C-alpha cells in the first residue's frame, strides 16, 4: 500500500498550481467566464505545454505514461482554481474513449487530444434520459457500411469549444435496453449537426446538440456496435473519479476561505470563529472534505479493478462527494453571511460549482441506487 505521489505527479501539481496562482486568479477567471467565448484557448495551449493533456495516457499511445491518478492530481488543482476549460470532456472522456478505440482512431484523434488541437465534448445526456446512460432516444441507423444519426443531446458541457463529439446512440433494441448502444466519434462540423450554445450557472459553456441525418462511416464506431454500454460506463466512472477530485479541490478552498473569513470577521467584539457553534460547523466541513479525499483516492485506485468493484467504488465516491459538496458549499456561504451571497466573492462560485458537480454523471440518489443494485448482485444466493 502506498499513498504517495510519484515525482512526476508532484511536478504536475506544483507547476499547475503555480500556473493557476499566476494566471487563473479569480478576477481573471471572472472576465474569461463573462467573455464572449467563455474560455481561453491560450490557457489550453499552456496546459498542453505542461503535459497535462498527455499525462494520463500510456507511452505506447504517445502519452506520458500516467493514468487516472495523474488526472486526479490535475483535477484537484482545477477544482481549487475553478478552471472552466474542458479537461473532463476532452481528455478524460474523449481521451478515455479514444485510447480504447482502434489504432486508426488513436492516430486520427488521440494525438490531437494530447496536443490540444482536438477538443472533444461528450454528448451522452438526453432531455428525457436523466442519468441512465442507456436511456437513449438518439438513434444511429445502419446505412450501407455506415450509420445515420438522429437525435438531441442535452447539456453537452464544453460543446461550444469542441472540434469533435463522442456521441452515444441506439443502434438496436428498445429505449433503455442495455444492449444496442453504440459509441461514435463525430466531427462537430459534420453535415447535419447544429447546436444551441449557452452559459451554465457555474461558469461553463454547454450546448444542446441536434443531429439531423448525420451520416458517419463504420470507422466512426468506437468499440463494438451494440455493445457500447460497458465502455461508456468505464469511461464515465473515470470521469466520476475526475470530478470527485475536482470537488475535493473546490471544497478545500471553500473551507479554507471560510476559516479565514471567520478569523477576520468580527461581530460582538470578537472574531466569529470564536463562536463554538461556527467552530463545530467548520470542523464538520473539514471532516467532509477529508472523507471526500479518501473516497476519491479509493475510487481512482479501483478504476482498474473488476467491473463490479470499479462501479461500486465510483458510485460510493459520487454519493459521498455529492453530500459533502452540498454541506461544505452551503455552510461556506452561510458562515460568510451576506458576503457569501455576493458575486464579488469567490466563495459563492465554489458553492455553485460544488452544487452542479452533484448532478454531473448522476446525483446522490442515482448512485446510491446503483451501489445498492450492485451490492445485491454481490450477495450470496439465498440459502437453499
Amino acid at each position, binding site marked *: 500500500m502506498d499513498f504517495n505521489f510519484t515525482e512526476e505527479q508532484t511536478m504536475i501539481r506544483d507547476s499547475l498550481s503555480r500556473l493557476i496562482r499566476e494566471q487563473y486568479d479569480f478576477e481573471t477567471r471572472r472576465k474569461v*467566464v*463573462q*467573455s*464572449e467565448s*467563455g474560455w481561453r484557448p491560450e490557457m489550453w495551449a499552456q496546459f498542453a505545454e505542461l503535459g497535462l493533456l498527455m499525462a494520463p495516457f500510456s507511452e505506447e499511445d504517445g502519452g506520458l505514461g500516467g493514468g487516472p491518478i495523474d488526472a486526479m492530481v490535475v483535477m484537484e488543482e482545477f477544482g481549487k482554481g475553478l478552471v472552466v476549460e474542458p479537461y473532463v470532456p476532452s481528455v478524460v472522456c474523449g481521451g478515455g474513449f479514444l485510447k480504447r478505440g482502434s489504432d486508426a482512431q488513436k492516430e486520427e484523434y488521440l494525438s490531437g487530444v494530447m496536443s490540444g488541437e482536438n477538443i472533444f465534448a461528450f454528448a451522452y*445526456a438526453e*432531455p*428525457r434520459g*436523466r*442519468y*441512465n446512460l442507456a*436511456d437513449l432516444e438518439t438513434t444511429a441507423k445502419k446505412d450501407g457500411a455506415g450509420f445515420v444519426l438522429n437525435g438531441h443531446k*442535452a*447539456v453537452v*458541457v464544453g460543446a461550444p469549444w469542441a472540434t469533435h463529439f463522442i456521441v452515444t446512440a441506439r443502434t438496436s433494441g428498445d*429505449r*433503455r435496453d442495455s444492449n444496442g448502444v453504440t459509441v461514435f466519434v463525430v466531427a462537430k462540423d459534420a453535415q447535419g449537426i447544429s447546436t*444551441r*450554445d*449557452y*452559459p*451554465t*450557472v*457555474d461558469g*461553463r459553456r*454547454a450546448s*444542446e446538440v441536434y443531429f439531423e441525418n448525420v451520416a458517419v462511416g463504420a470507422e466512426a464506431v468506437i468499440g463494438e456496435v451494440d455493445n457500447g454500454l460497458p465502455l461508456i460506463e468505464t469511461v464515465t466512472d473515470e470521469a466520476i473519479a475526475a470530478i470527485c477530485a475536482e470537488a475535493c479541490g473546490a471544497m478545500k478552498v471553500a473551507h479554507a476561505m471560510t476559516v479565514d473569513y471567520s478569523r477576520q470577521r*468580527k*461581530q*460582538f*467584539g470578537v472574531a*466569529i470563529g470564536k*463562536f463554538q*457553534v*461556527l467552530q463545530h460547523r467548520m470542523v464538520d466541513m473539514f471532516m467532509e472534505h477529508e472523507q471526500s479525499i479518501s473516497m476519491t483516492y479509493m475510487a481512482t485506485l479501483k478504476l482498474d479493478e473488476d467491473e463490479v468493484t470499479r462501479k461500486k467504488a465510483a458510485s460510493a465516491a459520487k454519493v459521498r462527494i455529492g453530500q459533502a459538496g452540498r454541506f461544505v458549499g*452551503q455552510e461556506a*456561504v*452561510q458562515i460568510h*453571511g*451576506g458576503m*457569501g*451571497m*455576493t*458575486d*464579488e466573492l469567490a466563495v*459563492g*462560485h465554489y*458553492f*455553485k460549482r460544488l*452544487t*452542479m458537480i452533484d*448532478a454531473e454523471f448522476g*446525483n446522490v*440518489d442515482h448512485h*446510491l*441506487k446503483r451501489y445498492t443494485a450492485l451490492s445485491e448482485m454481490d450477495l450470496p444466493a439465498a440459502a437453499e
Partner: protein
Amino acid sequence: MNLDFTPEEIAFRNEVREFIRDNYPKELDGIGTREDLTREEFLAWHKVLGKKGWSAPAWPEKYGGTGWTSTQRYIWSEENARVDALMPLPFGVSMVGPVIYTFGNEEQKERHLPGILSGDVWWCQGYSEPGAGSDLASLKTTAVRDGDHYVINGQKTWTTLAQHADWGFFLCRTDPDAKKPQEGISFILVDMNTPGIEVKPIKLIDGTHEVNETWLTDVRVPVENLVGKENEGWTYAKFLLAHERSGIAGVARSKRGVERLRNIASEETVDGTPLIETQDFARKISQLEIDLTALEFTELRTLASEAAGKGPGPESSILKVKGTEIQQRLTELTLEAVGYYGAPYGYGMEATGNEGFGVGPDHANFAAESYFNMRKTSIYGGSNEIQRNIISKMILGL
C-alpha cells in the same frame, strides 16, 4: 379547539378567491420564479389591493387594516398562494408601517401610511452595515443634530431593492457616548432623493441585483423624520424585526411550492417512471410536507396567541428558522428534480445575453438560480444562528 372553517369563513374564502380571480393582474401570470422584476411588476398587485383596502390585513382597522381575524388572514394568504400572487413587499406594509403606527406621531402617520397602503411609495430598510450584520447594535452610521436637521453619514449594506426606493428607514447612532451599543440609536425616516445618498448595486451569486450598498454623505434630514424618541430606536428596531420574522415563515407560499414540485416531479422521469413515483423522491417530498405541516400549525398557534393580544414574541424565531429551512429545501429538491437542465444559466451574461433561458422544460428555468438565491434566507432577517441565540436567551433563559 377545532380546525373547521365556519360558514362565514367559507363565504369569505369564496369572496377573496373570486376577487383574486377577477383582479389579479394578468401581466403577472407565470412571474413566480423570476427575481429580476421591474418596479411596476412588483407593485401591480399591491396597487390593486390598495384600492380595495386589502394591502395590509394585519394592520389595525383605524390605520387601514382589514379587521380580519387570524383565520381570515390565513385564508387570505392561502388564496393568494394558490395563484402564486406577487404579494406587497414587506418593507412598507410589514416593517416600517407597524413601526410608524405604533411609535410615530400623528403627522408621520398621516404623511406615510397612505402611501404604504396604496403602494405608491416604495420603502427600503437601512439596518445592516459592513461591520454590523448579526451584531446590528454595533452600527456606526451617525446622525448629528444641526439645528432642525440631522446630518447623516455612514454606509448601509444589503439594502434590498433600494434601487426602486422612494423612502428608507435608517438606524443611526445619535449618542456616541451611550453606555451600551443598543442605547443611543435612533430610527429615522429618510427621503431617498435627498442629496448625499448613493445607491450602488451588489450582484448576487444567482446573477440578480436585489441588494445594494447605500452610502450616506452629509445627508440632511428634517428632525421631524425621527420616529419615537431620540436614542430609543433599538426598541423600535427589535419590534420591527419580530414583525419581519413572523411574516418570513411563508407557509402558504411553500405549500404552493410543494404543489409545484409535485407537478415537476410528475413530469420528470427516471427510467420511464415519473420521478414522483420513485420511492427516493416521493419520500423526500413527503418529508418536506410533514415539516411544512409542523410549521403551519406552529404558525397557527402563534397567530392565535397574537389574536389573544400578545404581539409577536421570541417564538417568531421558530417560524423564521423552520420557514427558511423549508424554503431552501424546496428549491434544493426542485433543482434535484430537473436533473441536467438545472445547468443552463437563465439570466445570462452581458457578452452572450440570456441564451440559457428556456433551454430545458419551462419548469427548469431558474431552478439552480432560485436554489442559490434562497441561501440568503437563512442569513437575512437575523441569521438563523442569531434566531437560535434569541430562543436560547429569551425562551430557555440560557
